């Protein structure tokens, strides 16, 4: 483990970090100078500032490897995981701004109150498997069927998609719309090979899927590259249409077929 002493040194330089400081409604940017190297990520610098200059600087982190979804923040105005944002991807000669996610109530410095998200999950009907396939109580599934939902199950609950969605961020529809993360969660359950519950009526009513107007901002920020809009939201919107507006849908289809025939 300790061959570290003979390591080549990297280029170091000084850079300004403009961090949001303050509690609740009161806050402002504060500049810190930090000595950085190219391979570093934003979280490294924040933790370095915390250890050396501002012990009470609040931020969340756990894995430092993009796996836990704790370190969400807005870096240079963009929703990002601080642990996966390398300094060499940011302009070197400008200050780096780091601020908390803006769609949730502020707690302190880089930390926000994300408890609303945990409440949304409670509203979604839980997993209900079909009866087991085998006498020993187990199921048989094909890899291809499993693969279809794995994309959604990669979600690390960083809530960056929730942060960026204008329905929540700008229009504050927190009471009517569960947001892209939880539509993805519904998709994971609805497309689960074993699940038998029907969440489509709830999706239309309580979960407010209709508020989404497919801007795709959520997909753009997802660190797990989940195709939230194309693979989760749009197919679910179609299911809502099929279940609720089917007669109309059929008419439309009949009409369009006629018109192409004539």
């Amino acid at each position, binding site marked *: *483990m*300790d*061959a*570290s002493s*003979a*390591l*080549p040194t*990297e280029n170091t330089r000084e850079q300004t970090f403009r961090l949001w400081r303050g*509690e609740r409604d009161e806050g402002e940017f504060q500049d810190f100078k930090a000595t950085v*190297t*190219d*391979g*570093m*990520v934003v979280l*490294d610098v924040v933790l370095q500032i*915390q*250890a*050396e200059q501002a*012990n*009470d600087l*609040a*931020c969340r*982190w*756990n*894995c*430092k*490897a*993009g*796996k*836990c*979804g*704790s370190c969400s923040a807005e870096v240079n105005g963009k929703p990002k995981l601080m642990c*996966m944002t390398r300094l060499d991807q940011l302009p070197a000669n400008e200050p780096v701004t780091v601020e908390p996610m803006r769609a949730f109530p502020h*707690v*302190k*410095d880089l930390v926000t*109150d*994300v408890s609303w998200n*945990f409440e949304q*999950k*409670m509203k979604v009907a*839980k*997993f209900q498997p079909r009866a087991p396939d085998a006498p020993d*109580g*187990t199921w*048989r*599934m*094909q*890899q291809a069927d*499993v693969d279809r*939902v*794995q994309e959604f*199950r*990669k979600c*690390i*609950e960083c809530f960056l998609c929730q942060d960026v969605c204008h329905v929540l961020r700008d229009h504050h529809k927190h009471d009517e719309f569960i947001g892209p993360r939880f539509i993805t969660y519904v998709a994971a359950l609805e497309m*689960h*090979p*074993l*699940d038998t519950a029907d969440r489509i009526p709830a999706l239309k009513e309580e979960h407010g899927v209709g508020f989404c107007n497919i801007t795709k901002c959520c997909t753009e920020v997802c660190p797990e590259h989940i195709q939230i809009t194309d693979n989760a939201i749009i197919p679910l919107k179609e299911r809502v249409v099929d279940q609720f507006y089917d007669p109309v849908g059929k008419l439309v289809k009949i009409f369009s077929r006629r018109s192409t025939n004539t």
Partner: protein
Amino acid sequence: MTGEYETVEHDVLVIGAGGAGLRAAIEAASTGVRVGLVCKSLLGKAHTVMAEGGVAAAMGNVDDRDDWKVHFADTMRGGQYINNWRMAELHAREAGARVNELEAWGALFDRTPDGRILQRNFGGHKYPRLAHVGDRTGLEMIRTLQDHGIHQGIDIHMEVTIVALLTDGGRVCGAFGYDRERGRFHVYKAAAVVMATGGIGRAFKITSNSWEYTGDGHALAYDAGAALQDMEFVQFHPTGMIWPPSVRGILVTEGVRGEGGILKNNQGKRFMFDNIPDNYKSSTADNLEEGWKYVTGDKNSRRPPELLTRDHVARMIMREVKEGRGSPHGGVFLDIAWIKEHIPNAAEHIKRKLPSMYHQFMQLAGIDITKEAMEIGPTTHYVMGGIRVDGDTQMSTVPGLFACGEVAAGLHGANRLGGNSLSDLIVFGQRAGEHAAKFAKANKKYTIDPAQADNAARAALAPFDRTTTADGPFQVQEALQETMHANVGIVRNDADLRSALATINTLREKAANVAVRGNRNYNPGWNTALDLPSLLTVSEALTRAAIAREESRGGHFREDKPDKDPAFGTFNFVITKGADGEMQLKREQIPEMPANLKAIIEENK
């Protein structure tokens, strides 16, 4: 004076919301008792979420020669026979049922062609045994438990750190802690407490573990009178990232080797073939071709030496580096890209089997692992030692205090096999939950001593009253990490260990003088100051046990005593707090193994 603290009452309080704590809480709740669950971070962010490779269970889906007996024998061999054999037996017998139960709660594992749960090879496991989901098995597991758990009526208190256990005449009766958001104090009354706080990796400089892993559970239990066991055994995982510096220590899953990844030195040599320990000779491939056949599922081949136990692989890497055959940044090379020599579409295959490793290297190191070798070196990963428990019930030596998961000792002995932790969590989480609920129902009467809460509160607030300008909390923590790393790491000797002990004492004084700035609201400086006592307690326990074990075994390697000594194979080192407040270390004989288990070990030699 408890009135000053927000007080809630549960029958069972579970401390820790990783796989073990969640499973325990679910089990306890299913028996109808009131359950509280506290964790330092948000729900779903515990270490379990980071686990990659898989969960070990002898289901025999891929190789039907596998069964619980072989799994038991493998676990005992890996642990160098000082495991709690009862735990090893229960674990091997019950892991399959617990994994199937996860599927019933919504987990989706990778599949075999006939639609069952797929299993992969891992170090020290004779047959493909790890149920997995690509390389994000831990995420699947914690999310499944979390999503199931939130519907079981459990009271969840997130971002709360417990700083003391409350006791009544020798039994446990609750816990005292603070919330991060406002720094308010809370008393959790409970007839039974389940400790599920995970490990101690933050005691070391290079680690795969997060800020949470400060050994709180170990220290809280020790302070409440519980015995710790096997503290000298820390697992250094052979493959952590080493470059760039900021990623040093981040784990590279053993799954890379399970899928055919090989280790090479700077001369391109597969050095792992150079030194195969005697007790693994008969089960290890002695040529390149056989090793490859094994990872592709050939039942007549033996495993490649890259899949030997972690302690051995880590030391072999250290040797290459020390003798000048290391990689540019002080590690060796781990190569999965080479499998393109054997299979078409290797790049796609790698991305599908190891997606998060692909991602991690691409994003953090700018390396495409389907094309280039990775540079890796050992990283502090796991602690085998922990709270001494009864194998069947998971109760510690303190009545009413239970422990499960990484914080409990016994299952893994001197070295843990990969994949045996995730299975440990669900097998013993279930048992701890069941027995804690039973205990709570049978022992409802206790009295909370307000003085205990007051003392804990006073100690927690002390750093605000200090005005010293000496080392801050982060500096003391770092000094401890340096010491542990240099003197209590992969290669140890008596002199280094003793010097570490001396430094720990000095640091204890410094920790007692640490001053913090700011207020109680979400203040990491304060929080870190409060973690220091736990870190120091586990560091001291580790060092004392390492001094006492004058031999080399499993995760504990002494260069001044490089051989295994059979005389040390009959007992465990156990640590308790003496009446004078000093650490007491003693030997506890391992009970005689029943004949049937002995026979299983013989059959599988």
